[in-house]
């Protein structure tokens, strides 16, 4: 009754193609954005920044990236952790080499460098498909992590091999380092993620997105009707790695402040991001956000409930948390294999008809 599209008429193709075709959706999204940009910065504290919002934004960015490659172009990749490491180390080297460089530019440059690396590691995708490709991308994961561990140039020959983000300011306010106020790092990440979410949406609704989806749905037919597979796959790898690289840079510079290849960019991260997009919804921008939210917030939530409310011992809670997350993943996949985004779509369709059952 309240959620409807009747009365929403489109008189031009441009209006028909807009991002949120239904008026109510549009208003809700603008409302959320306004809240996120204008209200949250005044409420935020260290805990919300470091435990909830930054992880969510960083992983949402990574999920967007992987969703472009896997969800839209159909190339399953388990190299996400490695590409995030490229972004993080590129970011570190840039920050140290050009201290005056604006952090936005640093992060974007780090993304571009990752994109180039991504193209190189995307080359096997031209011959290898499906799970064979997924496992083959693990080669990049392991190789990159090994490389950043092994070559001292990447960590500026520091004794331990850890990289730490030096303090950089934006408009005179620190945005990296310990002195950075939570609202600043939050707004920085939020701005990037918002802009690039819209860009991702623009890409997938146009020519490039269609060529990706065509390759995903039926690669041979796509080639015969005129989609160059080389260009489509490599551009997907490039764009995807670009996003993942930026998320790696954000993870290192803004969220954690220091990083080490094994702990921060291990294989577990690759699986985590793949999870996010599958739980959230393959081939859905919204799904990337929902998946990232689910998998970053759920553990915190479970922990707070079990340890904070029920007062269970931390170790029991930790084991139970693992068990519950596994069970929830299976539950969601059984209930809706197409992810939370699909669940949301179905709910919306029901809402349109509400209160009438059919």
């Amino acid at each position, binding site marked *: 009754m309240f959620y409807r599209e009747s009365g929403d008429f489109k008189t031009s193709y441009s209006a028909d193609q807009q991002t949120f075709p239904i008026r109510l959706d549009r208003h809700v999204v603008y409302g959320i954005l306004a809240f996120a940009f204008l209200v949250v910065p005044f409420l935020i504290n*260290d*805990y*919300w*920044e*470091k*435990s*909830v919002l930054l*992880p969510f934004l960083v992983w949402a960015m990574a999920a967007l990236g992987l969703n472009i490659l896997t969800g839209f172009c159909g190339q399953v990749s388990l190299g996400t952790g490695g590409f995030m490491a490229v972004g993080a180390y590129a970011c570190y080297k840039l920050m*140290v080499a050009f201290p005056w460089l604006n952090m936005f530019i640093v992060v974007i440059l780090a993304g571009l460098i990752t994109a180039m690396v991504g193209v190189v590691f995307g080359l096997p995708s031209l011959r290898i498909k499906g799970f064979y490709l997924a496992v083959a991308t693990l080669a990049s994961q392991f190789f990159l992590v*090994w490389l950043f*561990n*092994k070559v001292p140039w990447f960590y500026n020959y*520091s*004794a*331990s*091999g*850890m990289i*730490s983000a*030096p*303090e950089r300011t934006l408009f005179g306010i620190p945005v990296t*380092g*310990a*002195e950075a106020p939570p609202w600043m790092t939050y707004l920085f990440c939020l701005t990037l993620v918002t802009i690039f979410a819209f860009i991702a949406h623009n890409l997938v609704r146009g020519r490039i997105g269609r060529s990706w989806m065509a390759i995903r749905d039926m690669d041979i037919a796509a080639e015969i009707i005129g989609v160059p597979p080389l260009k489509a796959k490599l551009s997907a790898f490039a764009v995807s790695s670009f996003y993942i690289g930026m998320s790696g840079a954000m993870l290192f510079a803004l*969220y*954690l*402040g*220091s*990083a*080490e*290849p*094994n*702990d*921060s960019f*291990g294989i577990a991260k690759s699986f985590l991001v793949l999870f996010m997009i599958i739980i959230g919804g393959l081939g859905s921008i919204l799904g990337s956000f929902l998946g990232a939210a689910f998998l970053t*917030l759920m553990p*915190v*939530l479970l*922990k*707070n*409930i079990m*340890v*904070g*409310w029920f007062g269970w*011992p*931390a*170790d029991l*809670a*930790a*084991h139970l948390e*693992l068990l519950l997350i596994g069970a929830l993943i299976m539950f969601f996949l059984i209930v809706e294999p197409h992810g939370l985004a699909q669940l949301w779509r179905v709910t919306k369709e029901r809402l349109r008809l509400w209160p009438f059952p059919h």
Partner: protein
Amino acid sequence: MKLKKMGVALLAAGLLVTSVPAMADLMFPVLSYRTGPFGANGAENADGYLDYFALLNERDGGIGGVKVQTPECETEYKPEKGVECYESTKGNGALLYQPLSTGITYQLIPKVTADKIPMLTPGYGRTSSANGKVFEYVFNYPANYWDGASVGVKYMLDQEKGDLKGKKITLVYHNSAYGKEPIRTLEELSKKHGFTLKTIPVDSPGQEQKSQWLEIRRDKPDYVLMWGWGVMNQVAISEASKMGFPMDKFIGIWWAGSENDVKPAGEGANGYKALTFHGVGKDFPIFKDIETHLVAKGKASNGGKNIGTALYNRGLYFAMLAAEAAATAQKIHNTKDLTGAQMRDGLEALKLDKARLEALGLANFAPEITASCENHGGSGLVAVQQWDAKAGSWKLVSDFMQSDREVIDALIKADSEAFAAENKITPRECK
């Protein structure tokens, strides 16, 4: 719709920090890990840490009459979770962090400095934080990795009657920030003492080390040092024993010196050595107190099953350092309730001598410590322990030995100054 709203409310509530600050108590958050690849080690350490504070509460009514609270937070040894644990506990009047992970330590160094909450990382973390002029809130006494490397070499020197010229020493290390720590020190020492150093990395997790150990078997080094962690230790020790490497010439760092590391290798591990900066076994008066006040009352952590293990003792020792520093701080500031900054003063003024250790029921458990404003790294006294597979226990086979300060101090100075320069920190003056 109602359900959905409730869900959202539940979500928001669940994400909020839920523990209520209890300002009257001394708050020592425990960042532990009991799951994941290193969970077995983390659990033993955390048990010791928790039990010591529980003992103080039970026996003495806390520290200086103030009860101690030890909220535990599971980090899974992951940097992200570590940060989350830190952020969710720091607001409740947290006095000290001991994250038991080098990765998390690096994450927290700038944060604790900004929040003015001290962090103590004995035997791990950032080695150069021993320089109190640069790292105001970070401590790592009584010993650090470089002390470990140095004492390891010193022990070999003793065994070889003072001469290591032409000897071959191989370092097997976990291919990570942690594992790479001793390399620079060992390189310096190899120049000084004339031994040849070979380093062999093992990639995490390290279940397959055939290549590495075949290489060692071919090289026949005189000594093998190991910087390992988790499953890497178990596999290395069992490979070494199977290949017939003399176990008494195989020396691990203190993180490769727990019962967990040697037991899977069975009899073969007999004679394996590891470095340590505290005593081993249950032969100290304090364990009687633990028995009467905790185990008997069913209050021991994990049912008391880890009491007396190497890592339990380490946890106990970590807690003891924290408690002693808190007591010192109470004296200095003449207050019962402490702040992070006051706790820092306590840590800097900590003086742990033989008499005090004896009074604590820990006579000869650990070397003396005298901390100061510039010295956050302690004396660097390290001993060697050896595994007796038949008895199933460790025993100390050396005294606590002084590390080569000449070499290490120079390295610490260089690294901490580099850090200060990179982060634009002006080293403070110490009076």
